[in-house]
């Protein structure tokens, strides 16, 4: 009996031990273990490439949409019906065929579940033949196509309560074992329609940043995610890989004053200081984002001015340039904020310009950003107090305190989620209760546009239309700080192929082409 714990430790160690190349087993430490398991209907893989499940469409290296399960797809003229033809050779990893019924089941179930995959606009998904599906929308929604590229298809016959822990899909890999908080072991799905992976087994080890670094240092992992600030010091035998992303970090402001309101869960809403547009605009004007990139990312990133910098739906006219403390101080003064008591922090009446910037204590990059921003704001008389908390604590605090959050997606649906008033207080989007009817109208017009191209001016106008918008020049609902590069240490023997521009996504975006990775050493 007494040897059982030892045997368990030995087994778990053996599972993460490096193995010779000929065994073709990989160990990755990229984080991103999903709390809710691997159920696409509950949000798994919402940034695309859900690993175990196949999607109707997928994004290529250049983010272009291409068919995965779908061989043909079109939107009706009234923009209310998607017609999709499925490939005939798609099989779940247990060998059963994937049919149009499974696709209809997945979309209908996701609509009813109301999880992170928000499909409320879907009226009904209907199988019109063994390999043809129609998705009927309640109203035109141009970003609906992103769901085709992100919602993994689950089997109608095998979907149940345990699915998130025992996922069955038609994606490139199938689950072997998941020990929560420790590791996930996967192997190629022999029935996958896309070809064979050269690796017999892939283990994802879950731990903090320190765990990743230790695994890399001891040679136990072949690819680890590392904080950008440390990326330049790769251990022997590993190279540094920086991947361009649309993964951003910014400070979300509570937009309403504290009037004693709480959410249904009892969490406080509102902050008197950040509810003042002058404070938010001054913060945006004062922040030197280049310096933050140097401080927190060691230069491996770029300044962020909006939620989608450089993407087609971005509007640079809504930016405030930043690094201008004089202009920031002028904005504060014009709004009646003055340092009457000489303590270096401005006040307006009895209200002192102080608020907490909450960051997740486990994330050293967000910590550095919070500290850097707080130090810069001190110079214009704003006392931003950094506070490192757990995600559970942040969930309680996020409606009444500024929080360093991160977003970044391959489509503008995220803009709608973050800034439309209907999402105020809903989950992790629009936690600041931002509401502007003009912006709402632009966002709705964008979703109702005739084509994606036609929607672009609407998205841009929501950011700044010359007089209002969610951007820094308008309501300044956020102070966006930086766009990251995702940094990894990769074994010199591992070829990870072409990099896709990563979305935000807690670890797994690097696996978008895992099936194409190659081992180059003998």
């Amino acid at each position: 009996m007494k040897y059982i714990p030892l045997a368990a430790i030995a087994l778990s160690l053996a599972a993460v031990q490096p193995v010779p190349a000929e065994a073709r087993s990989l160990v990755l430490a990229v984080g991103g273990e999903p709390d809710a398991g691997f159920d696409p209907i509950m949000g798994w893989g919402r940034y695309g490439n859900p690993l175990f499940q196949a999607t109707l469409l997928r994004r290529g290296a250049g983010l272009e949409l291409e068919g995965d399960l779908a061989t043909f797809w079109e939107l009706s003229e009234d923009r209310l019906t998607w017609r999709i033809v499925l490939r005939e050779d798609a099989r779940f990893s247990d060998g059963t065929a994937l049919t149009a019924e499974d696709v209809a089941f997945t979309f209908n179930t996701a609509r009813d579940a109301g999880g992170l995959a928000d499909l409320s606009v879907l009226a009904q998904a209907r199988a019109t033949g063994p390999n043809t599906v129609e998705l009927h929308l309640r109203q035109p929604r141009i970003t609906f196509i992103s769901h085709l590229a992100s919602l993994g298809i689950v089997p109608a016959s095998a979907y149940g309560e345990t699915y998130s822990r025992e996922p069955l899909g038609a994606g490139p890999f199938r689950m072997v074992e998941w020990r929560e908080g420790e590791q996930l072991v996967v192997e190629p799905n022999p029935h996958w329609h896309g070809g064979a992976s050269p690796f017999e087994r892939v283990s994802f080890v879950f731990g903090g940043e320190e765990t990743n670094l230790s695994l890399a240092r001891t040679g136990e992992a072949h690819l680890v995610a590392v904080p950008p600030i440390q990326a330049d010091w790769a251990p022997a035998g590993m190279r540094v890989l920086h991947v361009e992303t649309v993964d951003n970090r910014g400070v979300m402001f509570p937009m309403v004053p504290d009037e004693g309101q709480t959410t249904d869960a009892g969490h406080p809403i509102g902050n008197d200081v950040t509810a003042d547009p002058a404070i938010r605009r001054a913060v945006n004007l004062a922040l030197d984002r280049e310096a933050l990139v140097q401080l927190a990312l060691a230069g491996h990133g770029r300044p962020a001015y909006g939620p989608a910098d450089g993407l087609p739906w971005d509007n640079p006219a809504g930016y405030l340039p930043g690094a201008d403390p004089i202009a920031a101080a002028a904005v504060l003064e014009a709004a009646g904020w003055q340092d009457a008591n000489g303590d270096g922090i401005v006040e307006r009446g009895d209200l002192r310009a102080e608020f907490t910037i909450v960051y997740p204590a486990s994330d050293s990059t967000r910590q550095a950003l919070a500290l850097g921003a707080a130090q810069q704001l001190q110079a214009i008389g704003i006392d931003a107090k950094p506070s490192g908390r757990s995600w559970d604590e942040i969930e309680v605090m996020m409606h009444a305190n500024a929080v360093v959050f991160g977003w970044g997606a391959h489509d503008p649906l995220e803009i709608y989620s973050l800034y439309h008033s209907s999402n105020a207080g809903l989950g992790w989007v629009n936690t600041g209760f931002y509401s502007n009817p003009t912006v709402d109208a632009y966002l709705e017009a964008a979703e109702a546009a005739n084509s994606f191209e036609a929607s672009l001016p609407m998205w841009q106008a929501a950011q700044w239309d010359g007089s209002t918008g969610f951007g820094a020049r308008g309501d300044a609902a956020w102070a966006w700080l930086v766009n990251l590069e995702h940094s990894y240490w990769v074994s010199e023997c591992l070829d990870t192929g072409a990099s896709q521009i990563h979305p935000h996504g807690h670890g797994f975006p690097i696996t978008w082409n895992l099936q194409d990775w190659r081992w180059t050493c003998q």
Partner: protein
Amino acid sequence: MTETIMQQCAGAPQDMPVRRGAARRQLVRRGAVVAGILALVTAAPFLPLDPLHLNPAARGLGPSLAAPFGTDLLGRDVLARTLTALAVSAQVGLAAAAISTLIAVTLALAATFSRLAERAVGVLTELALGLPHFVLVLMVAYAAGGGMSGVILGVALTHWPRLCRVLRHEAQTVAAADYVRISRALGRSRFWVARYHLAPHLLPQVVVGFVLIFPHAILHEAGLSFIGLGIEPHLPSIGVMLADSLRGLMAGHWWVAVFPGLGLVFLALSFEVFGESLRRAADPVDGGA
């Protein structure tokens, strides 16, 4: 037993004054070191050093004249952070040791009041001693919401049992002595007895116990902060600095680990050694040896 004590005492008269003198000098020396350290860390917040100032242009620099302990990955001065962190450690240590000692004294005195109280305190003490030590600290700190108050409570509520046991035993011995019985027979109150008979006997043990809890407290603070349950990760604390240093060490930045680590060892060790000297000075048998 009596013979043994008599034999020990028989050899004492000649060398005891000499040994006592040496022990006293040692105690004073060690006390001076502890006082010096406390003075330094108390003064840390008033020194022209900013432990929070970030400097992107000075990230990860080794020790130099400008920054004798080097800088960390965010360009913060490691000397300033180490001194401030030791001040935090000292505050946590003092507060936790004081609360812990107070609990121990209260329970030890309460145990002298009745047989029932004696039994209750005995069971409570043994129960607290029987539980895994660090796990208990973790649970209390977590339940108290972490942070500095969580650490102080976690350490304070778990470090009283040993001192309490010593004090209880000492109190029982005194309470059973003839002169105490005579006092009680003469009509002295329990509080009079506690004030004039118990307190003088317990005081040296209390002081020693207090000083010896201190190093435990600061090491636990470092441990809790190291695993993220203590002081917030951006504030200077030895535990936080050592946790951060794991990243710095990967880059060859030894100074981010060595200086805070040495500071912690020095602080804990000096109190440990001082407490040991105090204990020996307070011990009538061991005091001259």
